């Protein structure tokens, strides 16, 4: 096998596309909604779906991986762990550090939720690395959009549109992703610093060429990760000082296993997405900062409307991560809602794909 070919494939690799297409076509004919599932690790994210389960976990395997091309194509039922291991063997990674939220996480769940980890502000989100998808449309047709090349502007960008759409526009069966080499050097550290000083420093560093790849703050401590070439990481490490930090901190932050995210805490967990330099919001809440301030986690009993209005005034939005919220996502403006409805109507006229998962009205 030449080096441009796929990995050998494993015994568990399976292509179920044909059967999945048939199931979707049946659902469309009968108008019976389907609930698309992977490992179920992100079932809490969004609204509950009523429908027949369409389990993607059997549809798995890396179909093509060429490290020199910086591209991997993978069926969406593939465990995320398996994909990350194969990339790591070649010294590469998914630069957006997707959260797993459990051992069963699949590639499909990663694409459908579009969630990214601590490196996001510096390298981009899941959608920034999606090059192409294969998707089953409502008539049960297996189509391909985008491809395995870095640049492709032929037709509309359906790959990125469907990333983060929570399976409401089609069944994504395969995705091609840009992958990147792991950085040559990485060092994590922690500084004792009050919030105002930490934010001021992050804002200043953001305007300088500095090899940062993660920045969080909680309870008087600024957590930083430096990544890049050996010498620049060493120089910045010497300049910043602080205590060494176990890099497992970033995994725990990403996976919500830090004490802050304790599930026994009765207060709902909120995610605020804000312009990174937004000053501390006037909300009664315990706050953990990630993404250099652009993503803030809140533990708060305040009513959803108060949190949402404050986030919106700052130019951002708020998502409730605690299951059971009637509307986990910030409502859309009337004009945006209209075009969401029209897109949904055109791509899924009978409303069979994960109805209500994102918003009650579709």
């Amino acid at each position, binding site marked *: 096998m030449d080096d441009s070919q796929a990995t050998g494939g494993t015994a568990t690799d399976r292509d179920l596309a044909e059967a999945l297409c048939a199931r979707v076509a049946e659902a469309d004919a009968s108008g019976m909604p389907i609930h698309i599932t992977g490992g179920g690790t992100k079932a809490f994210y969004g609204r509950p779906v009523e429908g027949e389960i369409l389990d993607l976990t059997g549809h798995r395997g890396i179909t093509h991986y060429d490290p020199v091309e910086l591209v991997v194509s993978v069926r969406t039922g593939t465990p995320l762990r398996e994909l990350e291991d194969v990339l790591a063997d070649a010294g590469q990674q998914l630069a957006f550090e997707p959260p797993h939220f459990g051992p069963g996480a699949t590639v499909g769940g990663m694409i459908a939720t579009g969630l990214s980890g601590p490196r996001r502000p510096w390298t981009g989100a899941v959608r920034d690395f999606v090059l192409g998808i294969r998707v089953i449309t409502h008539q049960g047709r297996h189509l391909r959009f985008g491809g395995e090349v*870095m640049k492709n502007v032929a037709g509309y960008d359906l790959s990125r549109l469907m990333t983060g759409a929570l399976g409401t526009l089609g069944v994504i069966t395969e995705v091609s992703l840009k992958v990147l080499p792991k950085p040559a050097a990485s060092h994590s550290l922690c500084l004792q610093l009050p919030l105002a000083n930490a934010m001021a420093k992050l804002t200043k560093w953001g305007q300088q060429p500095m090899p940062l790849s993660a920045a969080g703050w909680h309870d008087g401590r600024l957590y930083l990760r430096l990544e890049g070439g050996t010498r620049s990481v060493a120089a910045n490490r010497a300049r910043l000082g602080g205590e060494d930090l176990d890099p497992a901190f970033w995994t725990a932050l990403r996976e919500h296993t830090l004490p802050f995210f304790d599930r026994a805490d009765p207060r709902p967990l909120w995610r605020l*997405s804000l312009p990174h330099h937004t000053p501390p919001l006037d909300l009664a809440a315990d706050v953990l900062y990630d993404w250099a301030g652009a993503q803030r986690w809140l533990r708060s009993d305040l009513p959803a409307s108060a949190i949402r209005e404050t986030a919106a005034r700052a130019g951002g939005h708020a998502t409730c991560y605690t299951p059971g919220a009637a509307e986990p996502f910030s409502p859309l403006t009337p004009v945006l809602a209209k*075009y969401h409805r029209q897109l949904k109507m055109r791509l899924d006229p009978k409303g069979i794909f994960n109805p209500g998962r994102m918003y009650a009205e579709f």
Partner: protein
Amino acid sequence: MNILFDERLDGALPQADPQTTRERLRAALPGMTLLDREEDRRPFECDGLSAYRVMPMLVALPETVDQVVTLLKTCHELRVPVVTRGAGTGLSGGALPLEQGVLLVMSRFDRIVELDPEARIARVQPGVRNLAISEAAAPLGLYYAPDPSSQIACSIGGNVAENAGGVHCLKYGLTVHNVMAIEVITLEGEKMVLGSEALDAPGFDLLALFNGSEGMLGIITEVTVKLLPKPETAKVIMASFDDVEKAGQAVGAIIAAGIIPGGLEMMDQLAIQAAEDFIHAGYPTDAQAILLCELDGVEADVADDCQRVRAVLAEAGATDIRLARDEAERARFWAGRKNAFPAVGRLAPDYYCMDGTIPRRELPRVLKGIAALSKESGLRVANVFHAGDGNMHPLILFDANQPGELDLAESVGGRILELCVEVGGSITGEHGVGREKINQMCTQFKPDEITTFHAVKAAFDPEGLLNPGKNIPTLARCAEYGAMHVHNNQLPHPDLPRF
């Protein structure tokens, strides 16, 4: 097959009455410039794909968003097609006017609304030139990363509409990776904001959908872009090769070494010669190919990477490796590359620029295919290549005054694009489909995929009034195109409905 709008293949266009349209627009928008005299409309009859020209029915030059809203509402009500134009540098005929349509020119929206160094964003009107953003941000130590070679002229609105690239895409991404938010006016005159100054927004990723949508879904009236801190240093290495294939392999070897260069460009012999004659960049005119590899970032790392890249290039068989000694030489090396199109343009009365992408490993095969097509047609082809991300720009030289040569150049171009699709690539990496590649869309996509594109379009513009005929072909066009390309008695699209 001619690419001008053909109602038989592209669908019936609403018959707008020029006089009514003019009167209604004048009445609704007394303060807006509306050109209707032939000599005033003439300069707008084509974009960068100048082989095709159509006189627009009317040319509107609004200056405020309210005017755009009123114009769209009026055109929607009268069912008059609207073609939007930025700076008109597009190479695929995306801004090619329609005889029955209004040309909406966004060039007067040329204000930088806000530069915020702490937020690291620039909020600009769509007619602002790409380079003007980086120039305005330079005193703050910031810049806007995507740098199409047309950056002195092209507009940011056009960049978003085409998802424009440049020579630094592999590391810094395309337009879609560098735009935070856009304000859009829909065909019905509604205003919406897609994206935000936060890193994401609720709902579908409509911002990504609008990037590269070629003015088919809405009019962009404001763009918020991400600014990056200027790299501490940037170095350029130029490597010469006596064989194009070796240069191609060197590209893979650099990436295999775990290095992502800021820019990684390749030029073949004809392009090197042309650029050298035009710019005097200091290129080795005896080389079969050169690679320009830019390494940027923090000083210490760049020094290390330069060492490693030199070693990789030597190993890959480079005959000469030169590090630009100073900023002036670095600028010269890039000037040669950035002016490659006009430079090649001096070699013949006309040139036709292609824009296919391929998996990099297929480069030798595609270059051989291009050489064969060149030989067969007798037309010279120069190759300029965003090698790092597999985006090729073959430049086909011809003389439009020789009967049949334009057709020949187009047919060679079309076959090059089909070759790109065959090896797993795309018919366009950054220049867009427009009218130019409307037929080749039928090669890249199956009818069901094209139908899905039409469904997306219909969600925003069910009557097809925004930029009709661009970007997505009708199935009727694909059927006709397929019928013309019968190979071995086999239709390439046997599954297409025939009309």
